[in-house]
């Protein structure tokens, strides 16, 4: 039975759900102008962010044990909210240029956000499933938003077919787990020690994890990532690679760490190694920055997997920090790419914006070049930026739980990654601009500019004061 006091705890969820519905109505009644719905949804996300921030230390299980609100879920939730907020800021200019600034975009994105939050707060496989599907279905739509363009169509189709296929596996896993334990409630499942090591449960768990590994982009299930990110509208790719990953990781990790599957550590570390290898090695041969960022997203899935492998309380905190840094740097980089793409002549389809076109960006618009340089260096894990501390905490957790060889591999591979990030930076700073647009500054609208600045500020702030994050959520690192 629902207790009305519980509703107080899920105010952020209610805000997002209600604003998604209201923005749908605003969108349809304020015909052409996208402004009202834009402002409204931006404010809604901000309100949800503030409300979540006010009660970060709550630890309760509510609504017939369907939702679990604790500092970890709040942390992941706030990171997802932040990512969507920055995406919203950058979306308007980009979409207007492409002629797809529909009010529905904001509504769908809010629904996706609702799905993510439900999933992160979920304490029941049913809630996990509903949240995951709400998120995925919205992502399919957002990927295919540019419906006149072949690439967008194609990536939406691929994403949809693979995503639905993997949902089948996830669901089969859930059904087996339910059969083995007799519960759908995650707390109760984790409490049934006798059933938890039966073959049926383990097969179910494996299928369940496959579903999530697909969403995160762990090795054998990563093939969709580059295609989908390249075809989708750039701001949407940025959002999917950050918020989508945060949601999937935030749901899976607490479960896995409570289960503490120590005997499968080897399997997990092999998957982590392969994911990092694949992401970093294939990225070396890329010439399109959007695709390069997609491969770097696979590589970072590998770093997250290193965190999952160490299976300690410390590693959740490390992953949470890494994801926060990741939102700023990855989303920031995607937004810079989106601004840059808009400045190039608009073809029938997405042109391949290769590295060559970034030549001399530092002379054309120094601010963009500085921002992109910071984001890429942070992604590579160079010290004064947030990305470094993210990797540092994850590898630290891995070393603490005797996975020294794995962290050595991870560090070596992230040294390799410096090469391809530096290539872009060299093109921007040390080459002369060429082509018909050479010499002109890249036009940046105020809101995109603000979004880039927020990401830049985040990358620098958490790079210089990483402790801010841990003191805010009262996570103890020792």
């Amino acid at each position, binding site marked *: *039975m*629902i207790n009305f006091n519980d509703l107080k705890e899920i105010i952020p969820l209610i805000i997002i759900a209600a604003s998604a*519905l209201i923005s*749908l*109505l605003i969108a*349809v*009644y304020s015909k052409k102008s996208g402004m009202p719905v834009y402002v409204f949804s931006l404010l809604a996300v901000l309100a949800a962010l503030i409300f979540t921030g006010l009660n970060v230390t709550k630890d309760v299980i509510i609504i017939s044990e369907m939702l679990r609100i604790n500092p970890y879920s709040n942390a992941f939730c706030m990171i997802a909210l932040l990512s969507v907020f920055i995406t919203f800021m950058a979306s308007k200019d980009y979409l207007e240029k492409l002629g797809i600034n529909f009010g529905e975009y904001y509504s769908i994105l809010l629904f996706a956000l609702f799905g993510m939050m439900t999933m992160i707060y979920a304490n029941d496989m049913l809630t996990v499933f509903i949240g995951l599907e709400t998120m995925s279905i919205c992502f399919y739509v957002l990927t295919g938003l540019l419906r006149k363009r072949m690439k967008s169509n194609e990536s939406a189709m691929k994403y949809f077919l693979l995503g639905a296929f993997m949902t089948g596996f996830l669901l089969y896993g859930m059904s087996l787990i339910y059969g083995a334990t007799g519960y759908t409630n995650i707390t109760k499942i984790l409490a049934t020690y006798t059933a938890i090591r039966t073959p049926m449960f383990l097969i179910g768990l494996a299928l369940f994890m496959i579903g999530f590994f697909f969403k995160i982009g762990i090795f054998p299930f990563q093939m969709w990532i580059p295609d989908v990110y390249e075809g989708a509208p750039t701001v949407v790719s940025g959002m999917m690679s950050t918020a989508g990953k945060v949601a999937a990781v935030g749901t899976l990790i607490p479960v896995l760490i409570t289960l503490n599957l120590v005997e499968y550590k080897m399997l997990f570390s092999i998957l982590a190694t392969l994911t990092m290898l694949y992401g970093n090695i294939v990225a070396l041969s890329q010439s399109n920055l959007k695709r390069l960022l997609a491969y770097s997203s696979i590589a970072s899935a590998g770093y997250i997997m290193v965190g999952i492998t160490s299976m300690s309380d410390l590693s959740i905190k490390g992953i949470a920090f890494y994801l926060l840094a990741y939102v700023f740097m990855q989303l920031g980089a995607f937004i810079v790419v989106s601004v840059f793409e808009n400045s190039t002549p608009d073809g029938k389809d997405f042109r391949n914006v290769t590295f060559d076109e970034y030549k001399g960006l530092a002379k054309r618009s120094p601010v963009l070049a500085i921002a992109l340089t910071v984001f890429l260096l942070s992604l590579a894990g160079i010290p004064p930026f947030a990305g470094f501390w993210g990797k540092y905490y994850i590898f630290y957790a891995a070393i603490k739980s005797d996975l020294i060889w794995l962290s050595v591999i991870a560090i070596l591979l992230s040294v390799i990654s410096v090469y391809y990030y530096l290539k872009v930076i060299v093109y921007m700073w040390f080459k002369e601009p060429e082509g018909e647009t050479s010499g002109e500054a890249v036009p940046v609208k105020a809101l995109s500019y603000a979004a880039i600045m927020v990401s830049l500020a985040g990358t620098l702030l958490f790079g210089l004061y990483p402790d801010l994050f841990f003191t805010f959520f009262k996570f103890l690192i020792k």
Partner: protein
Amino acid sequence: MLSDFGQVLIFMIISIGFVAIAVISGKIVGPRFASKGKDSTYECGEDTVGDTWVRFNFRYYVVALIFIIFDVEIVFLFPWAVVFKEMGLLAFIEMTIFLFILIVGFIYAYAKGDLYWDKPQPIVPKLDRQIFKSEI
């Protein structure tokens, strides 16, 4: 004594046999005279017009989608209706919220004009010559 599957088997044999006898006896006993008119496609007794593979109007698709959404919602309404008396006011409020969410979707579809079906606009023949008008 038959097992559960035995019962199902007997049931299957009887039902298949029943249909088979009806169909086969019809084939054997009934008279058959082929003619051109009889073999043609039946379309309300008229001569068939045009190709079978025509493009359907796109509106059918939108209407079908809206139908699916409101069709599936019934699945939640039935169990609710069964326990409605025991659950009382709370269940009523919850279901109202649920239906409200669906109605927002409906309003959206309505405001977008997806439910608007063009009325047939008969083509009135235009006459240039005045002579008929005066005769009427």
